[in-house]
């Protein structure tokens, strides 16, 4: 099969506040693939999500990330979004006073404009919104509320995937989307994500626990440890980690270092 790389990360080194967190990370994600990144706390999972989405304050110290042949790290956050990179936030931000409909319409139309598509008028936009909301079992009353304000934890996470459904990204990065979700909400969220999977896009699922991967089945699982991917495998690797934890890998790694 001919593989089309969406994202190629080479020797990525990055940090925040003068602390180096990613220490030479390599990862290639092709179209149609779902990758899971797992790792213990502090291994650099969220830093990877932040660096790929362009969060201010994170500093790239070396290496490259090429997205559809372009230098991803050189783009502004909004440019990345318009090019099809989507980050589902671990902690979605509440924005008091900014109406959800207004925000969603602005976002959708920015992305459409960038793709050379016509902007949606109010009626078409509402039709699209209502259709996508159903998939995530979101109440339409959310539309008239300020972005994320007063949303429950589950609503916030579902709202992230709802936005993903509206923006139809080429590369979706899900940063600990399972955290704080009960099993029903987890199913809804995972179902939403699965429906968005196509042969021409890809998903990078960052998670601490294997639980989410029962529902979003990855093609590849990578273990992130101290800023590098130390082990890659198929979906069975996640089960192994669930059973034995990260300790055997950590031990193996430190043996390597000592040797």
């Amino acid at each position, binding site marked *: 099969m001919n593989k089309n790389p969406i994202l190629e990360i080479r020797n990525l080194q990055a940090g925040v506040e003068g602390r180096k967190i990613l220490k030479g990370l390599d990862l290639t994600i092709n179209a149609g693939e779902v990758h899971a990144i797992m790792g213990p706390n502090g291994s650099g999972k969220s830093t990877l999500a932040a660096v790929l*989405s*362009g*969060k*201010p304050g994170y500093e790239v110290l070396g290496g490259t990330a090429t997205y559809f042949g372009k230098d991803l790290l050189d783009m*502004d*956050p*909004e440019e*990345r*979004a*318009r090019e099809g990179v*989507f*980050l589902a*936030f671990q902690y*979605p*931000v*509440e*924005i*008091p*006073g*900014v109406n959800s409909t*207004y*925000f969603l319409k*602005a*976002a959708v139309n*920015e*992305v459409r404009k*960038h793709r050379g598509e016509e902007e949606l008028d109010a009626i078409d936009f509402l039709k699209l919104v209502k259709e996508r909301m159903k998939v995530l079992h979101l109440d339409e009353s959310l539309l008239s509320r*300020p*972005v994320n304000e007063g949303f429950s934890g589950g609503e916030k996470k579902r709202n992230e995937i709802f*936005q993903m459904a509206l*923006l139809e990204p080429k590369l979706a990065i899900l940063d600990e989307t399972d955290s704080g979700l009960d099993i029903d909400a987890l199913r809804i969220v995972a179902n939403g994500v699965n429906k968005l999977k196509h042969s021409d896009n890809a998903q990078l699922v960052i998670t601490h626990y294997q639980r989410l991967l029962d529902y979003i089945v990855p093609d590849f699982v990578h273990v992130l440890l101290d800023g590098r991917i130390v082990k890659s495998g198929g979906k069975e690797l996640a089960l192994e980690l669930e059973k034995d934890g990260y300790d055997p890998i950590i031990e193996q790694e430190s043996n390597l270092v000592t040797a």
Partner: protein
Amino acid sequence: MITTSYARRAEVRETTAHLARFEEFERGVSGNSPAWLRAIRTAGIAHFAEQGFPTVQYEEWRFTNVAPIAAFPFKPATHPQYEGVTEKEIEPHTFGGMNCHRLVFLNGHFSPKLSTLLPRPDGVKIGCLAAAIHSDGPLVEKHLGRHASYTDNPFVALNTAFVQDGAFVHIPARVELAEPIHLLFLTTEAGLTSFPRNLIIADRSSSVKVIEDYVSLVPAPHFTCPTTEIITAENACVEHVKLQRENESAFHVAAVQAVQAADSRVISHSISLGARLARNNIHLALNGPGIDSVLNGLYLASGDQLMDHHTVADHASPRCNSHEFYHGILSGKARGVFNGKIFVRQIAQKTDAKQTNRNLLLSDLATVDTKPQLEIFADDVKCTHGATIGQLDEQAIFYLRSRGIGHDEARNMLVHAFAGGILDRITIEPVRQELESTLFERLEREQHARA
């Protein structure tokens, strides 16, 4: 009335010119006025002479130095002979031709030619104070100068000394005036000082919406020094929008005094956009039980502007609510001042007073001095206050950008949201919309200036 103890004056500012102009005024125009009015003017000038212009040693004026006003050549607009303003010039200041009663004042004096009144219920009086002094003498005499204290505010004293004209609104009992009243105060000549004086009387169970609006038609310095007295009888409701959009070299020092009877409601909005130095004293006297009032305000200051709000909610009766929301947006080297006093007298049990003042600093050089001042003498009350000063939320900006919204657009959305909370409380839709677009234009302009 609350008396304010001033710190000892370190410096008495020059008032000779003001006193001299008053003597001329008294010998001239004022001479034809009824005796009771002349007495008020004399009392006004006496209190002004005694207090002089405040210095920053006065607690009430600590952050607002009025020296440039004291030094501004004093040319009071005492002669109502201003003409040459056309309807076309007024058009941009009519909230898109809003359907309303509109009284236009040129340098504080009523212009019948430019004013329009809609049909109105019997007994409703919407007109100018100069005429009402004669036509409604007893009612005007009963209220004029009786509520806005000139003993502790030299600018109210000066206004009272030169009181001549302004708006007179009287809504009889049980009349709910459907259309708002727009009072448009225009300054047409550089260098003038004008003293608009407004009296709004809402009788029992009546309701009215009034926009008190200040605009410069000249791009040069002038001084506007208005005073407004609002009297709400039992169960009456007054929504009052004070909109100050004068040019950025103007001086503006205003006072609004509301005196409320039981179960009445005053919704006071103060929107400050213009002037080089703008001070608003807004004072609600909650004199009967069951009052529900709102103090709502927005100041948008850029460049070298100074905008100062001093508010008072004086709870002098039980079971009253006063809810206060003031937001400031400051950029450039602008300065904001907010002082919110909540006074709960011993009798005022079951008071519910809330106050918030939030400030958004969009530049490194903008500053804000904010001070809540609670004086509570009753024991069964709910009083809360909070003040914040901050920048735009970087997390929120990143969140918006991560969805494809550009950096400037994201900033604008957040600033709009910040101001929107205040503007949304204005129920006069054309006014709210106009202010929304003014805000938008200003943000765009500042963005271009930054770029």
